[in-house]
């Protein structure tokens, strides 16, 4: 009982939940808990209402999006793809300075986690292990896509 009270008082449960979410994501697999916390602290959380546009094609891309809750649709010309919670998109923006190749909009009320590229690269610089691990995961993700 006391232990639970102390836990409730001192431990940041929002951060704990974020880590549980991050742990499921393939981009961050193989990372230790402390590394995940470091990444979780970089997150900017944003809520989108139903049918709100997240970004438009040809706009500058410098953010990695992680879908926490809700549904997001990516549309490129005629084809489209629906993402569920736990998916991430625009991971290409972590590697190079580029533009969005498609539109994205929220299908339901959604909460997204935004990670700004330079901040993450900064973390890579100070903690090379995280950088190596994430780059490995990114490479395997792109390899599977082709």
């Amino acid at each position, binding site marked *: 009982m006391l232990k639970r009270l102390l836990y409730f*008082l001192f*431990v940041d449960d929002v951060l704990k939940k974020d880590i549980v979410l991050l742990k499921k994501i393939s981009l961050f697999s193989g990372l230790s808990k402390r590394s995940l916390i470091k990444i979780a602290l970089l997150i900017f959380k*944003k809520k989108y209402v139903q049918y709100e546009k997240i970004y438009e094609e040809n706009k*500058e*891309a*410098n953010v990695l999006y992680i879908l926490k809750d809700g549904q997001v649709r990516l549309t490129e010309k005629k084809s489209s793809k629906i993402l569920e919670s736990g998916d991430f998109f625009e991971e290409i923006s972590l590697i190079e300075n580029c*533009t969005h190749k498609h539109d994205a909009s929220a299908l339901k009320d959604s909460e997204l986690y935004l990670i700004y590229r*330079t901040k993450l690269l*900064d973390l890579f610089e100070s903690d090379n292990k995280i950088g190596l691990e994430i780059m490995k995961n990114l490479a395997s993700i792109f390899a599977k896509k082709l």
Partner: protein
Amino acid sequence: MTESLKNRLLLLLILAFIATCLFLYLSRAILTPFIVAAFISYLLSPLVVKLESYCLRRWVCVTIIAVVLISALIGLLFILIPLLISEYDKLQESFPQYYEYISNYLIIFKNKLENSLPILKRYDLYNMILIKIKGFVILGTQKIPDYLVNIFSVFSATVLVPMLVLFMLFGANKSINSLISIFPSKHIETILSVVYEIDMVFGRFIRGQLIEASFVGIMSIICLSIIGINFALIIGTIAGIANLIPYLGPFVGLFIALLVGTFQFHTVGIVIKIIVTYAIIQFLDNNFVQPLVVGRNVNLGPVTMVFAMLSGAQIFGFLGIVFAVPVAAIIKTIFIMIVQKYKLMSAPMLNMPKE
């Protein structure tokens, strides 16, 4: 939303913005503690994040930092204040002596100079220099306490600022995030990039400079007191603060130490000792502290930096000099961002396939 309604809302926003600015301008007299508190909490925020990475709630982190800092400050004050007061008394006491020494030296110098260059007799160089020095030093030494009191009234320094710092450390990140969220979501990436880039350039530079300055200050105090120079504490503090100014700063401490040293010992040996000491401090600072704290450089050329510093000094005085370089770096970052955006926007248009 219809166009007219949108325009009316925009007008309302602009009016609210102007009203806020006017209000802030009218209440500018009480703004100082808020700005100081915001600055301090900005400096401390990486510490909070560091503690947060142990999965602690924010209030726990802030409490830990507050306890550690306050006890450290109280300890420092107990050691430093008596020392500073005694040095200040000594300075006021021995100043006439130094003054006499300077004037004697100047008389000798003047005679020598006038013998070799008789034209100079026409100008009363001696008195001119002496009056300048006297006015400068007397004004300077008498004004120091006034200056400190003016910046920080006792109340705001001891109660208001620490309290504001605690509150800001606790809640500012949330308010900033909600402020960012107000912007329409299609601009969110731009806003994030502006905020984060500015934060990175500015924060890294200012924190790095402060760590460096305190390193130089503390090292100067220690080394000068080992050599046995009077007023080591005051000289070291000035050297530390002056070190915030690029290029010129390191020489200020050296110059003052040399002056006091020659007055005190009247030997060449002390001059060499002081120069060697400062060379060692600067060497340690440049090779071991700077790479650790600054990390990435601000990427400004020397000419740009000197121009920024001088224009900062022209507009805002000493604080202008200190903040000129990071502000110039921010302007450069934003400029680069705009150019990059423009390039990215125009690139797809050029490569558009013909249909």
